[in-house]
């Protein structure tokens, strides 16, 4: 019984992996923004990035 459940689970994992690979999923944090105005092409400063106010790394050890 456990083996059957494991086979089904494992197949689901492999199918999920295949879908993720084929469709090109990513683990990165990426935001989708819709309807970015065409004017950004000529005036890049007019676009406000989602991540522009993030705290940035400021030094090593």
């Amino acid at each position, binding site marked *: 019984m456990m083996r059957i459940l494991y086979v089904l689970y*494992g197949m689901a*994992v492999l199918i999920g*992996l295949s879908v993720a*690979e084929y469709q*090109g999923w*990513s683990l990165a944090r990426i935001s989708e923004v819709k309807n*970015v105005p065409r004017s*950004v092409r000529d005036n890049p400063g007019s676009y406000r990035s989602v991540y522009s106010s993030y705290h940035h790394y400021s030094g*090593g*050890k």
Partner: protein
Amino acid sequence: MSTGAPTPPGKPQAHALNCPGCGAALTVRSFNNAVTVVCDSCHSILDAKDPNFQILQQFKAATGKDRPLIPLGTRGRIRGTDYEVIGFERRTIHVEGVSYSWHEHLLFNPYKGFRYLTEYDGHWNDCSTLKALPEIVSFSSPPKVKYLGETYKHFQTAKASTSFVLGEFPWQVRVGESVEVSDYVSPPRVLSSEQTGNEVVWSMGEYMLGKDVWKAFRLPGSPPVAVGVYENQPSPMSGEAKSIWLTFAFFLLALVILMIGFDLAASKEQVFTGYYKFDSNKRGEASFVTDDFEVKGHASNVELTTSTDLNNRWIYLNYALINEATGQAFDFGREVSYYHGYDSDGSWSEGSANDTVAVPKVAPGRYYLRVEPEGDVANGTTYYTITIKRDVPQYSFYGIALGALLLPAIVFSWRALSFEHLRWAESDHPMVTSGDDE
């Protein structure tokens, strides 16, 4: 336990007699096979071979204190043969000052002879005497014996004494008599040797569920709940643990095949590359857009790699991959930092001068990239290259899939091991010694 071959009766019938001690009626069910009979009323052990039922021993026991779970005289079917319960005894061992008792129900069939149903804490065993001796495996630790090609591992040796008897027995039973009992297990079977002086009797038991015993004897109610793990109780996981690992091996193979397949099938096509410079001292608008480029094929990931000349510095890049036609953008920020040095612990380094990120499910079309670099004024000038490829295999998924496949197999094995740990905890060979518990 000790049995001989039964004497087949002429016509099956129980003999009704009276106890010479108290006059209570006695019933002898095994005909001429009974050697001793126990009076239920006065607890006299009587010589069944003596026409006058000479009293061999009397013992004290509270009436009703320890009744058979299957009443004497009950008939049931075990392995396709009808048996009647004719005797009952309680036997006790003492280990490290603790008494452990189990019950033995003696079963009789006039043509098949005797067998036993033993019960301990709700765990049952169907036992019968062996007709051949097991072979002792030399130089094995813990000791092992072989019987009919199966190897049995020593579980426990203890002095067992008979502490209560009822019914009739085909041997000279006495309360207080003791034997050395050694159990060897190979679940679901157990081999038991009982040694008295030079005489050794071997028997084999096979684990039975209480509900099966109840069904076999058509007993009312439900059997006592089994407590803990018994010495020869079959592990619900033992057979499946191997098959789960075998299945895991197949999945691992499938995973490798998928990885090779997707790697070969992935286009990994470079769709854009650009070389840039960022001067953090320079004031004014730092953001810019790249030339447009085409992403072809089916919707797939797009991998953006930033390669820099950073050296004990950092840069933060706000990226927006924008579809020219639809205005849809993938917005993300990437911090690239690389620090290194030398201190009392030796050399150290943190981060990397390069960074790679995958943008998911990018539909085909024409795109451009908006880039907005940020950095400390003290950082000075940073040179960096942006490279974009489409349809690139993401190996991190294979790591996640491997973990997901491995986890149930490990949990299952751990549960199987826990079961065995519980089994052997009560043996002479526990898997964890008392010193490890401290």
